[in-house]
């Protein structure tokens, strides 16, 4: 990784298809050939479904930057779990490519794949996937054992990661003796044992109750702040996605409908489907003043409510309640960097109250 440019994507997914059914590969090829425009994946997917096949992932394209926390969000059946399994090659994708640090892992042979998994990839599962016949330590140390690490080294490293997830003291317990939250801590510790660069998390907190979920989300963010892994995180919970993500991909019926920052998703949904998701999200909490700054700064601005660039929209709006003219925006150093129209602040916050409010 060191020899590569730091902006090079850690994961690059291109034209990825996962079609379930008999002779999927051939069917996909013929469907593409039959389509008037092979790029029109809607038509290809329709064609496949008409033949009784299930296109679970349809032409997915995205990149995950090094150190980025990339969340894939969608309802059950949207293909998000299938997608992460394609990227980790737990299932064989039907077409497309998945590059991890430039290497197309779909072309990797069995040996190379095992090697990658032993050293570079880690994964956390929704239902934890803990080995019931092993103690906590043995579970966490299992990937190290696969690496061929010695027993003493395994114990030492297991102790380290268990400390990281706050589970020291339970090393000799069996999974059945642990609570749900503790089990997922073990799952997280295990996935970090070999210190992987790429970290896959498949709905890691979905099986936990809300309080524990929030607690683990916060700890997860803390861990990520220090470790800076490249992460693909799956969830069906928009709040979780918005809270954790650097960028979010929204999936529907096997198709990635929008990719963007939490702010993009909340303020600039590409269609009604995405808008529907974010309807109940308090907009101001996820967007900053800079997202609604005007292109041109007006010459005269009589009022100055002292808006800052990184200020949340809801707080900014509070300060502009009685103002109608554009107001200046300042950066932390005290320089004016732009201007905001208070009316647009309000509009951004109520972006779908117009549709929702009418109902």
């Amino acid at each position, binding site marked *: 990784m060191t020899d590569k440019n730091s902006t090079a994507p850690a994961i690059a997914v291109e034209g990825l298809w996962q079609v379930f059914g008999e002779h999927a590969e051939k069917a996909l090829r013929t469907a593409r050939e039959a389509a008037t425009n092979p790029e029109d994946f809607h038509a290809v997917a329709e064609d496949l479904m008409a033949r009784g096949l299930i296109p679970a992932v349809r032409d997915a394209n995205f990149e995950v930057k090094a150190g980025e926390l990339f969340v894939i969000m969608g309802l059950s059946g949207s293909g998000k779990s299938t997608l992460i399994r394609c990227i980790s090659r737990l299932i064989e994708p039907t077409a497309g490519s998945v590059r991890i640090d430039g290497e197309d892992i779909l072309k990797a042979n069995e040996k190379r794949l*095992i090697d990658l*998994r032993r050293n570079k990839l880690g994964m956390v599962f929704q*239902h934890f996937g803990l*080995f019931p016949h092993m103690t906590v330590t043995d579970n966490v140390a299992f*990937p190290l054992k696969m690496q061929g690490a010695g027993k003493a080294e395994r114990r030492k490293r297991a102790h380290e990661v268990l400390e990281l997830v706050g589970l020291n003291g339970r090393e000799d317990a069996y999974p059945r003796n642990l609570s749900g939250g503790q089990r997922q801590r073990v*799952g997280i510790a*295990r996935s970090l044992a070999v210190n992987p660069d790429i970290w896959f998390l498949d709905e890691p907190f979905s099986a936990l109750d809300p309080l524990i979920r929030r607690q683990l989300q916060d700890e997860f963010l803390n861990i990520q702040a220090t470790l800076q892994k490249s992460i693909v995180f799956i969830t069906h919970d928009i709040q979780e996605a918005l809270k954790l993500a650097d960028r979010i991909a929204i999936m529907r019926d096997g198709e990635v409908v929008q990719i963007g920052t939490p702010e993009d998703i909340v303020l600039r949904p590409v269609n009604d489907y995405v808008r529907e998701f974010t309807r109940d999200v308090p907009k101001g909490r996820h967007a900053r003043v800079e997202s609604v700054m005007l292109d041109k700064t007006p010459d005269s601005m009589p009022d100055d409510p002292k808006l800052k660039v990184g200020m949340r929209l809801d707080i900014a709006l509070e300060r502009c309640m009685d103002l109608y003219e554009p107001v200046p925006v300042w950066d932390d150093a005290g320089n004016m960097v732009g201007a905001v129209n208070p009316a647009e602040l309000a509009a951004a916050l109520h972006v779908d109250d117009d549709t929702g409010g009418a109902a």
Partner: protein
Amino acid sequence: MAVVEEVSGGRGLDITRGAKAALLVLAVGITCRLLGAQFDWLVAWPEALTVPMTDWVGAVVGWFLSVFKPVARAFSYLISFPMEWVGAVLRYSPWPLTVGLVTALGWLIGGARMAALGFFGLSFVVISGYWTEGMNTLALVAVSVPLAAIMGMAIGIAAFEFPRFKGAVNALLDIMQTVPTFAYLTPLIVLFGFGPVVGLIASAIYAAPPMARNVLLGLERVEEDIREAAVMSGGTRRQQLFLIELPAAGQQIMVGFNQCLMAALSMVIIAAVIGGFKDIGWEVLLTMRKAQFGPAFLAGTVIVVFAVVIDRMSAALAEPREPQSKRVALGIFAIGAGVALWSVFAGWSPNGVAWLDGWAEAVDAGVGTFTANNGATLDAVKNTSMFYGLLPLRIGLADAVLPFTWGFQWTAMHSLMFFAASAAIGGLLAWRDHLTAGVVVVIAALLLEIGIAQAPWPLMLVGAAALGWVASGWKLVRLVVILLGLILISGLWERALLSLYLSGASVAACAFVGGVLGFLSAMSTRVWTVVRPICDMLQTIPLFVFLIPVLMFFQIGEFSAFLAICMYAVVPMIRYTRQGLISTPEEMIEAATASGAGKWQTMFEVRAPYAAPTILLGLNQTILYAFAMLVIAALIGTTGLGQSIYLALGQADVGLGVTAGAAMAILALVADRLVQGFAEERRKALGL
């Protein structure tokens, strides 16, 4: 046939699939009944059209066996060594040592309870005086179980790793389990020669399928997340399988091991009929033949004790448990060893202490007195069931009703009146929108008048095919017709009908008694606390032992066989009925209660329909159990295929043994598929 009515009856005014099928069967039945007198071939399959299947199979299998014989004999020679060694160790170890060891083992497995079970169980064997015989049996089990376990493990893993073979493997396992146990033995005798090795091999073959099934099931049930976690940890396929998936499936595999042990024990005891080895099964058989019921009962009890100890201990292995103190186990073993040492000096008898000989004689005398005093009552029970139940079912009312038993002679006039009455009931049912039920009543009357063992073959064939059509579809019809056709042209048809009659009668009795008991157990926990241990016990006892009590009171004969079959086959019916009735989702019950349904209304309107698929599965098990026991019951006097298989065993007649065994398996298979078809249909209808 009552199933047809239950499934398709009362669906509406249209002629349902069931009604169509029933009408067709009735038409065939009436044709056969009316024209049977003129055309013999309508009743019995013409002799000219039978093929000497038995001879052909005999020739082919015989040739096949002769090819493998040298290999088999070599194997038999090799395997006889470990068997001898294990036998010698078990026989010549002073029994206090063995008792101590088993008690210590029990402690390790399940604490004080299992330790007590081991101690008292084996102590009973010691005082029974059958220690040597018991140890000989145990030696056979001890060698055959590892064989079976390894074989089953390999088959299960192979079926899991190569899903393409799964269908084939499942079919093979089905065959291994439906072909009656006695039928295995004949070709094995030819292959391996007389002697205990045959019992060993037979029990290994018989015990492997449950192991294989459970290994496969366990592997399939490993959570997807666990499987994927192993992959993502970078394990090779072999590491995934042996380090993660098999251990994670451990409990299910232990369930398989438990079943494997029980099957092996059961088969070792059955294989004793070959003789040549002084084991406990032989002891039972010998005493039974000499009508020494006391010793037979005592030896049978020893078998049951073994079965209970082995079953409960290995079942405890499959339960999650906390580790027990090893020091206590060592202490127990040390005490055993100490007593053993002392006993050797004090004059240890390798045959146990035999304190119960007097007791056996007392039992013998007691039974003698009891049967002498109550002979009239017992005979009355037996004769009533025979003359008014079994016999009419077998040869039909027309032949069974005689002045000597019923007080009058059945005439054509009676037949007419009987048919008229059944037609009236059927018509009434049809008029009340239960057309299928009505037709089935008339068919049943027809069958009762003719007798199952004398039923015209077109009626039976079309009847089975019609059931297949209603249950599942044309594919099943094809299977049923081809398989039954094979029996028909092989000349074993009449014997098959006799077997069908006896198992049918037992299944009907079991369905009724088991259904009622299961229902009561579901309604009241108090009933279940009484019924449950009895069920547990009946399921643990090896088949063979069921013969002892019925013989004691009813002597050799069809009625004894009938009782033995019922005792064994009733258990699944009870269990599944109860299970089905109590497993209704709580929400459905609450919805019914909220709608104002009473306890009984809930039972009949909600619970019973929901339980139907489960109860049908219970019926299916009962049928398979009945067929399995039917062959064993041949020892105490049944006619039909079971008898043929038993005779073939005595004469080492491979052709007859294999064909009769196959015919038996076909009957079981056809019954199995039919009932499964109905259960599946019901499950689909309920959206399960």
